[in-house]
């Protein structure tokens, strides 16, 4: 674990009062009239955020839309060579936050800097420093891992020859068969595809790596392999890592510090040990899951998220 609290430590990532809102389709008038929409829904009334906070008056939703605040006044710093975890239930704004950090979304308010570079003003310079693994392994499905990885690496200026050598090495370490390297991605399992996605990000040797639920869909052994690789990337390549995950054990094992995100706001930010200390009672050593439930009053994946509403589709 890093001594993150040393004030002289270099900040790799600084997020200051960041707000992100989206216009999303409103319920039809007849449903609103009938009052059938749930009060607990993440859809907020016009001019109000998901968590009920008033939005500035100039920010009114477009006609037929509702204004939803996905990330609300979020501030934190991540130090160089730190592994920083973001935990939150579906729809808490984790993926939106990762997209803001990776220049795929622009903040409505606040500022984000990566090694002193502003993500909006110095976009191209920031892009050279970062890479991201998302929960969906997005690839050209007919192309092979080799073709996909060489394409991705060339975009970052890595030569085809060097990318090929590195890709074979990384995929070999992640347990991908040699024969799969030149077969179409569509023939591979979801777990295998995710390994290729991880290799794609590692290939460019980013100094800030953004991992959005990178081990979702992987078997336990593969998860451990990826976790070991993440640690190695930090230790040997001087990388800083921001990771979102649903896996509490993974967060506990990997992260130097964890931010708990709830309704787009940071509910708590501390080391795993520090978070546990907050709810430790009568000698009972709480798990990170218990910490999460105590601090947010929610489970990591709620029933409503699955059966009634797909907030990731709206908020992410």
């Amino acid at each position: 674990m890093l001594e993150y609290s040393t004030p002289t430590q270099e900040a790799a990532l600084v997020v200051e009062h960041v707000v992100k809102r989206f216009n999303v389709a409103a319920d039809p008038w007849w449903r609103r009239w009938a009052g059938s929409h749930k009060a607990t829904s993440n859809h907020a009334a016009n001019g109000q955020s998901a968590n009920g906070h008033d939005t500035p008056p100039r920010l009114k939703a477009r006609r037929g839309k509702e204004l939803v605040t996905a990330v609300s006044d979020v501030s934190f710093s991540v130090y160089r060579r730190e592994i920083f975890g973001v935990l939150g239930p579906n729809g808490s704004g984790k993926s939106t936050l990762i997209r803001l950090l990776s220049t795929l979304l622009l903040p409505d308010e606040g500022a984000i800097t990566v090694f002193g570079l502003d993500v909006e003003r110095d976009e191209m310079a920031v892009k050279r420093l970062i890479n991201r693994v998302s929960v969906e392994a997005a690839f050209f499905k007919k192309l092979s891992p080799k073709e996909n990885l060489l394409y991705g690496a060339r975009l970052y200026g890595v030569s085809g020859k060097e990318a090929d050598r590195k890709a074979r090495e990384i995929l070999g370490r992640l347990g991908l068969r040699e024969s799969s390297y030149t077969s179409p991605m569509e023939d591979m399992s979801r777990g295998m595809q995710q390994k290729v996605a991880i290799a794609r990000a590692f290939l460019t040797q980013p100094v800030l790596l953004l991992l959005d639920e990178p081990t979702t869909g992987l078997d336990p052994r593969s998860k451990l392999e990826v976790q070991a690789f993440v640690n190695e990337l930090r230790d040997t390549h001087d990388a800083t890592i921001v990771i979102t995950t649903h896996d509490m054990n993974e967060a506990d094992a990997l992260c130097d510090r964890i931010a708990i995100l709830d309704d787009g706001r940071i509910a708590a930010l501390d080391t795993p040990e520090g978070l546990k200390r907050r709810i430790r009672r009568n000698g009972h050593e709480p798990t990170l899951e218990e910490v999460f439930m105590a601090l947010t009053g929610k489970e990591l994946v709620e029933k409503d998220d699955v059966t009634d509403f797909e907030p990731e589709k709206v908020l992410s």
Partner: protein
Amino acid sequence: MIKGIQLEMRQSYAFVARNFNLVKRYWGWEVVWLAYSIANSLSVTFIGAGAAEITGETQIDTNFLITYLLIGTLVWRFLASIFNNISEMIAWERWEGTIEYTFMAPVHRFNQMIGQTIFAIVYSLLFTVIIGVVVAGFFDLSFADADLAAATVILLVGSLSFVGIGVVASILPLLYPERGAQMTNIVQAFFLLVSGIYYPVSVLPGWLQVLAKISPATYVLEGMRAALLPNTATADPLSYVWPLLIMGLIMLPLGIYLFQRAEKYTKRTGKLKRNG
């Protein structure tokens, strides 16, 4: 400096290599599309072959008519292929779900357009040459007096402005994830109608003739016909290069500028995410 240029070239090459890999992997579709295009071009040129029988006029220069239609169908195949390859670059990435990765990479849109343009021109040229050779094989045509060099220059210069129009059209799938790809077909249909692909622009109603003047395809076709059918030409083929050059110089930077503005808008509103 040299390292910077090498990096930019590598980025542009990434798009060329990726697109040719996709052509290779989707080879079945390519064969089907090629067969359809040959049949389509043949059916158009056979109209010329049957003109005497259709009209009952025996004095019709059938070979001229066949060549006239053949030039129309081949030039349109070429320009439409360029337009499709450029305008579909976003739709394609949305379909595959890779758009966020391409947009997250440190690539200037200009480099991306260079890569897409090189691929589009090489691919379209190959595609058109194959169709041309097959279709011409059905008829006894002579291009002895044709100015092939002028025709090539006109085609290449004309393709630049079509790249610019394609870039502008590719904004549609960026802004409208669900309907954008279909909207680009309307743009293509407009050029098909007004540019005099299979008929002289002069037969169009007056208001459509005005629109024909802003279509680069009109100048490409008239220039190509002047170069390949010199006996009927009313102007020097190279006189069509200037309007095409001016249109290309306006459309290319304008297309990239508008695309960058649209990209910013999608990042502001979160429209990159939806894989429509």
